[in-house]
C-alpha cells in the first residue's frame, strides 16, 4: 500500500515527464517527416550529384551510428564548435535527423511503388513536376506509408527515453528521480513508466490505423485477412 502511495504522489512528476516525452517525440517526428519527404523526393527525382554527395551519405550516416552515440555527438560535441545548445535541442536534432533518414526510406519505397505511369499521366495533362508530386504522387505515397510510419512512431517514441542519458528530464528520468528520492520500489516505478510508454504507443498506433482506414483508396487497401491460401485448400 505504501508503495502504491509513492506512485500516486509521484504521478504529477511522471505526467510532467510524459509531457516532455511527447514533446520530444513530436519534434523528432515533425523534423523527420518534413526532412524525410524532401530527402525521399530528392532521392527519386533529384539530380545525380545531389543524391551521391548529399542524400545517400546523410541517410547512411544517420542509419549506421547508434542513437546514443548521436546524442553524445550533438550534445557534448557541440561545445567543440563553441555552440551552446540545450540537452532538449541536442536530442531533437540528433534523433530528428536520425528519424529523417529512416522516414526518407519509408517514403522513397512508397513513391517508387507508385510507378512511372501516374507521373506520365500527370505530366501529359500539363502539370509541372512539382504539381504532379503534390497532387498525384504524394497523396498516394503517403497513404501507402502509414503502416510503416506507425512503426517509426513507436520506435521514435520509445527511443526518446535515450535522451535520459544527456540529462533531458523526460519520463524515464522522472521515474529515476522518484526511485532515488523515496528509496522506492524500482520495479514498481519503472513498471509505471513502462505502462505509460505502452499506452502512448498503443493509442498512437490505433489512431494511425484509424487514419489508414479513413483514407484508404478503394481497391488499394492493405488486406486485413486473406482468403484461404492455396496451400490450405489442398
Amino acid at each position, binding site marked *: 500500500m505504501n508503495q502504491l502511495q509513492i506512485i500516486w504522489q509521484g504521478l504529477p512528476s511522471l505526467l510532467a515527464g510524459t509531457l516532455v516525452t511527447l514533446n520530444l517525440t513530436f519534434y523528432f517526428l515533425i523534423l523527420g517527416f518534413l526532412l524525410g519527404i524532401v530527402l525521399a523526393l530528392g532521392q527519386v527525382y533529384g539530380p545525380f550529384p545531389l543524391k551521391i554527395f548529399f542524400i545517400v551519405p546523410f541517410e547512411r550516416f544517420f542509419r549506421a551510428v547508434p542513437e546514443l552515440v548521436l546524442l553524445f555527438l550533438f550534445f557534448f560535441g557541440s561545445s567543440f564548435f563553441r555552440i551552446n545548445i540545450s540537452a532538449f535541442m541536442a536530442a531533437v536534432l540528433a534523433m530528428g535527423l536520425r528519424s529523417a533518414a529512416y522516414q526518407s526510406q519509408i517514403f522513397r519505397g512508397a513513391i517508387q511503388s507508385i510507378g512511372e*505511369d501516374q507521373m506520365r499521366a500527370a505530366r501529359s*495533362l*500539363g502539370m509541372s513536376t512539382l504539381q504532379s508530386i503534390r497532387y*498525384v504522387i504524394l*497523396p498516394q505515397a503517403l497513404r501507402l506509408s502509414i503502416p510503416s510510419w506507425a512503426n517509426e512512431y513507436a520506435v521514435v517514441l520509445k527511443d526518446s527515453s535515450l535522451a535520459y542519458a544527456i540529462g533531458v528530464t523526460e519520463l524515464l528520468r522522472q521515474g529515476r528521480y522518484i526511485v532515488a528520492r523515496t528509496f522506492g520500489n524500482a520495479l514498481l516505478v519503472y513498471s509505471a513508466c513502462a505502462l505509460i510508454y505502452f499506452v502512448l504507443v498503443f493509442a498512437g498506433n490505433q489512431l494511425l490505423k484509424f487514419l489508414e482506414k479513413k483514407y484508404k*483508396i478503394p481497391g488499394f487497401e492493405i488486406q486485413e485477412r486473406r482468403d484461404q491460401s492455396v496451400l490450405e485448400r489442398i
Partner: protein
Amino acid sequence: MPKTVLKVENLHKSYGNLEVLKGISFQVRQGETTVIIGSSGTGKSTLLTCINQITPPDKGRIWLEDIEITDPKTDLNMVRSSIGMVFQHFNLFTHLNALDNVRLGLTVVKKISPERATEIGIEKLKLVGLEDKLHSYPAELSGGQQQRVSIARALAMSPKLILFDEPTSALDPELIGEVLNVMIELAKSGMTMIVVSHEMGFARAVANDIIFMENGVIVEEGTPEAMFNYCKNPRTREFLHKITELYGGKKE
C-alpha cells in the same frame, strides 16, 4: 483545305545504341484521324510520347499549329495541356474518383474554379456514357469504363489534338466495343486524333489516313481505301492482311 494541327519533321530518337525513330515526317490536319499501325517495337508509342515531349526526341522539329514544340523556349506544360493523351493502361489517378480524375487537370493546370470544373467534368463523363459512375474509384470500374474516364479526362482540357496509345489492347474483347464507339463518335464530332491501334474496323470507319511504320521509318501512308486496296509495298500488304485476319475489319 483545313489547317494543319500537327506537323512532324525528320524526327529521330535513340535509346543508347538502339535507334527507335529514324526520321519520321508527317502532318495531321484539323478534324482528321490518323491511325498508326506496325508491329511491336517499331517505335509507334515512342513517336506519340515524342510528340508531347514526355520522351524528348534527339533530332527533328514538331509544330502544334504555329507553336514549335521542339523550340527550347516553348512552355512545354502549356503545350501538353492542349494535347490530350490516352494510355494503353489507362493511367487513371488511383486515389481519385472518376469525377476528380477529370477535374484535376482543370483546377491545377487551367486554374478553373472548382464549381466550373465539376460542371465540365460531369459534361465530359456524360459524353462517354459514365454519368452514373461519377464517384466510383478506378479500381471499382471495368477496364472499358476506366478507359472512357481517361478519354473524358483528356477531353476536359479541350485539347487541339488527342493521342491514343493502343487504347484497346489491354481490354477484354467484350469491352473493346464501348471504347471504340466513344472514339468513333469523337472522330465524327471533328476531334483531331492520332491513334496507334490495330483495330482495322475502327480505321476503316473513321481514319482519314493510315500510316504503316516499320523499324523506325514510315513505310507507307495513305487513305484506308488506298492502303487496303492498292498499297504498293509488299510488306504493307502482308501486315495489313495479317491484322485484318486477327482484328477483323474486312469489308462485308
